[in-house]
């Protein structure tokens, strides 16, 4: 069964960090440039995460993310370049269509921030098993029931896609058409969807019973097979990131005071 998680099994600087450190890294990368409020901040943060991706050898795995987002960033550039409310000075023109400098700068800001968050996020999910992260969260007090919900989604989806492909084959052999005109394709949606949905909803009853037999509802403190503690490297990283958030706040305050 194919896993749907994007985790890459490797050994790198980021793999060895605790999942909370990585989560805090994502938070830092979102907060620091936003607080500093400078376009260079976004660019620097994006470049830093990009560099980390290269160092960890994950660039190839992160490429699909990047390609996926190029269209949306391109759309932002075109739409804002043409229609941003503060547009005044023409930057360049393609035939009759004129692109404005203000709009392009605004789009650049959104685009850079977007890529910054994307790269930091890619670092987090490519190096962390979802199950480990859920377990770490449970150990500091996330409800085990909620933890189960998230962890089991990762098991159920591959299972359902498996059932799905069986049903697609079955329906095709009965003569269902999955190609052709829009209406033909739209008609195929129900015979594909309904059997999977029905069978998985009916299965929930059995799964609930199986869980209850194994003490899912027990009100006793749960124990864990693995415990992951914060290492010295984690603590150093957390300290540095906390420091950078504080200094970005200080930077903003100083800037504000000078402008005043």
């Amino acid at each position, binding site marked *: 069964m194919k896993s749907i998680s994007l985790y890459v099994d490797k050994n790198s600087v980021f793999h060895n960090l605790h999942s909370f450190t990585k989560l805090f890294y994502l938070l830092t990368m979102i907060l620091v440039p936003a607080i500093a409020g400078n376009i260079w901040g976004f660019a620097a943060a994006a470049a830093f995460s990009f560099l980390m991706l290269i160092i960890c050898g994950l660039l190839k795995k992160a490429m699909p993310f990047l390609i996926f987002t190029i269209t949306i960033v391109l759309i932002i550039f075109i739409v804002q370049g043409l229609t941003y*409310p503060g547009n005044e000075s023409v930057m360049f023109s393609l035939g009759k269509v004129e692109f404005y400098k203000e709009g392009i700068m605004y789009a650049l800001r959104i685009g850079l921030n977007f890529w910054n968050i994307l790269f930091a996020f890619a670092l987090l999910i490519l190096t962390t098993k979802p199950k480990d992260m859920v377990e770490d969260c449970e150990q500091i007090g996330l409800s085990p029931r909620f933890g189960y919900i998230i962890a089991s989604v990762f098991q159920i989806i591959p299972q359902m896609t498996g059932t799905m492909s069986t049903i697609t084959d079955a329906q095709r052999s009965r003569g269902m058409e999955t190609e052709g005109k829009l209406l033909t394709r739209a008609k195929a949606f129900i015979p594909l969807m309904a059997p999977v949905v029905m069978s998985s909803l009916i299965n929930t009853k059995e799964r609930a019973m199986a869980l209850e037999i194994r003490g899912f*509802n027990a009100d006793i403190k749960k124990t864990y097979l693995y415990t992951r503690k914060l290492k010295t490297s984690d603590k150093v990283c957390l300290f540095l990131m906390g420091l950078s958030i504080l200094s970005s706040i200080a930077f903003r305050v100083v800037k504000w005071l000078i402008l005043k």
Partner: protein
Amino acid sequence: MKKNLFKTKFNTAVIVLIPVCIGINFLGKFIAAQLKLPLWLDCIGTCIGAVLGGPVIGAICGAVNNLVYTITTGDVQSWPYFLTSIGIGLTVGIMARLGNMEKFGKALVTAFVVVVVAVAISTPINVILWGGTTGVVFGDAVFTFLREKGVGLWLASLCDEALIDLIDKFLTIVITFFIVKALPKTITSVYSVGDEIKNL
């Protein structure tokens, strides 16, 4: 009727229902993509969860769905829309508890309310994060056209979003309606909150 509106059971059956609903969301999106339909159809599961388990379960389904979707695809641009998913879950749940998912005609009313809620939540997100665009080429073409014609930012963004949501959410609710109708009583009764247990 009123006091049952937000009443939620948190038994094992409901906890197991949530991952399945999220799985259904994924499948809907997957099949729609496979059949090359120009729609998302990615909240059927949330709606089923909301009809069966109530508004709170619907909201949880919506929130966890977007969280997991972002983790598994790395599609960061869609995470702020978890607010929309929560809104859809809540709305469908409340409408279902008010008895608006029992007949086909009433389900269409629910669909209309869901479209209004989805557009009302998504449009501010579009404007704040993306300057008004939705990322769906067809809708964004309308947006650019309206902006060029001098229509206000919010109105143009609203049209962009409403155009896509209208068809998508109507179909979603109709599909949900038929699926829930077809479920055997033994399944639906596990989740209903209206029943009283009588001891012998």
